């Protein structure tokens, strides 16, 4: 047989207009861990010392996890134009400067990091977590990852996580300009007023 054996027709149907759905950045994502089979326990530590104290013999792993989590936090935390905007989400004194080369931005300070033995047992996974001290924020009192997933109350230092918790998060940064791609198209499609006979695709 020289053709595709089977196609998931459900996936191909477009009964709702999926094209118009716009994803949201710091969406409040809810997790249904009960439905996940690959869950495990992770600890949340405020810093490397707390991690080392509770994991004797893992001082080096704790230090590395802490430093990498700090860097990931800087890359992936939501960014705000003003301290006020950031604090409205995360609470007073919960925000820090984000070093942007053109002017300053603000991001929530890392509140701690998740730490768990990797599934292959030889390494340790880590991921930065944030929390909000503003009772009006949907993230109030919870451990939250950079992509907006909540992992229960920040009074607990042991949480249940799925694999998603340690997957890389999108980097979030400040956009300085837009529209630097696409100019050739507007130039070429206005050529000679022929648009009516030209269906306007740029593929070939």
């Amino acid at each position: 047989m020289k053709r595709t054996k089977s196609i998931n027709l459900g996936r191909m149907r477009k009964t709702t207009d999926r094209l118009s759905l716009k994803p949201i950045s710091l969406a409040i994502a809810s997790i249904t861990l009960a439905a996940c089979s690959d869950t495990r326990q992770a600890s949340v530590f405020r810093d490397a010392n707390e991690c080392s104290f509770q994991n004797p013999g893992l001082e080096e792993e704790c230090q590395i996890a802490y430093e990498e989590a700090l860097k990931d936090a800087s890359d992936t935390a939501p960014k705000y134009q003003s301290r006020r905007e950031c604090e409205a989400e995360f609470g007073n004194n919960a925000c820090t400067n984000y070093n942007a080369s053109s002017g300053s931005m603000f991001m929530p300070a890392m509140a701690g990091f998740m730490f768990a033995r990797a599934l292959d047992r030889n390494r340790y996974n880590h991921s930065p977590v944030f929390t909000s001290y503003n009772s009006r924020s949907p993230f109030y009192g919870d451990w939250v990852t950079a992509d907006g997933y909540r992992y229960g109350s920040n009074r607990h230092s042991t949480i249940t996580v799925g694999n998603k918790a340690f997957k890389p998060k999108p980097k979030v940064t400040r956009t300085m300009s837009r529209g630097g791609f696409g100019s050739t198209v507007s130039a070429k499609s206005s050529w000679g007023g022929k648009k009516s006979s030209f269906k306007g695709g740029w593929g070939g």
Partner: protein
Amino acid sequence: MIRMPIKERPNWREQADDFGFKFHTMYGKAYWDESAYYLFTLEQIEQGIEDPTAEVHQMCLAVVDKVVNDEALLRKFRIPELFWDNLNQSWKRGDPSLYSRLDFAYNGKDPAKLYENNADTPTSIYESGFWQWLWLEDNVRSGQINRGADQFNSLQEKLIQRFSEIYSKTDQPYLYFGCCKDTEEDRGTVQYLEDCANEAGIPTKFVYIEDMGHGEGDLFTDLDNQAIELMFKLYPWEFMQREEYAGLINKNATQWIEPIWKSVLSNKALLPMLWKMFPNHPNLLPAFFENELDNSISMDIVKKPIYSREGANVSIIRNGKTVLDTDGPYGEEGFIYQAYHPLPKFGKNHTLIGSWLVNDQPAGISVREDKAVVTQDMSRYLPHTILN
């Protein structure tokens, strides 16, 4: 290879709505045409198209290998000097490619002749990989086409597999997909590829090319200010390399599908290079750069812009006279010349075979017809079967 009339499926337009196939009719004219189909023998498919596709593709890759190491050739291909290093490294690293489409003139008897290589932004993948597949399923089920009929079309299967391979070698949270605004055809094409990636279990996000931003740290960003570091773009490299964000391309590690080395493979300057490196190959037409034109003076030739799409700005020159000229916005980067070899006619139609590759493997064909001798973007798409 026979053109077979057949009854249209009575409900296909409703079905197209259901599946979101919006560009089957454009500007009041049919693009998807199921009033007929092309019937091939297995031998025609395998020896006539599939084997030459694999071989010609390898020949094209040999050209790329030569060009990326040769500054004079890179200049001839009109690739801006700013990108030479990046392109060379991308090729040497083996940055993975998803797909390509080789266009052939093939009449079912004589060797297929390569017209061009659409290696950067090929379209009609949805019609080929999914819609004509569904057409055959439906017609077999209704008994209009024999149960033993097959189709040269493993595109969807191979695309899903290839996306999975590419993504598993990255640590990116998303695979981005992007195309330009205001084109239903491109948007539908990209949606199809996104569906294939989702079927492979890959998280995806969509961004219009015009909405992309320049973020702190010289990253590309989406409308949520998230970094775009792995992206399928249905947007030509030769445009990207000449626009405002061109400089940013070399400054970050964003992985592009198709990769930047495809700007050599999709370039029409490939055609004279192929003829130089593989002269008189049965699947090639003689082709020349502008400064070599003396060689071809006795033959009828076609003049094509180095960068062009959908048959725009093509001239046919016979006995030294231009007999046909298509309009278009291309040509400022120069032209190449290819021996005139008209498409075979089936009834009143000129028929072009698009032969797909996914991950360097032949993966299926598309058949397009046009009343005019140069296939343009308003040509019609017809399904095909293989006689068993």
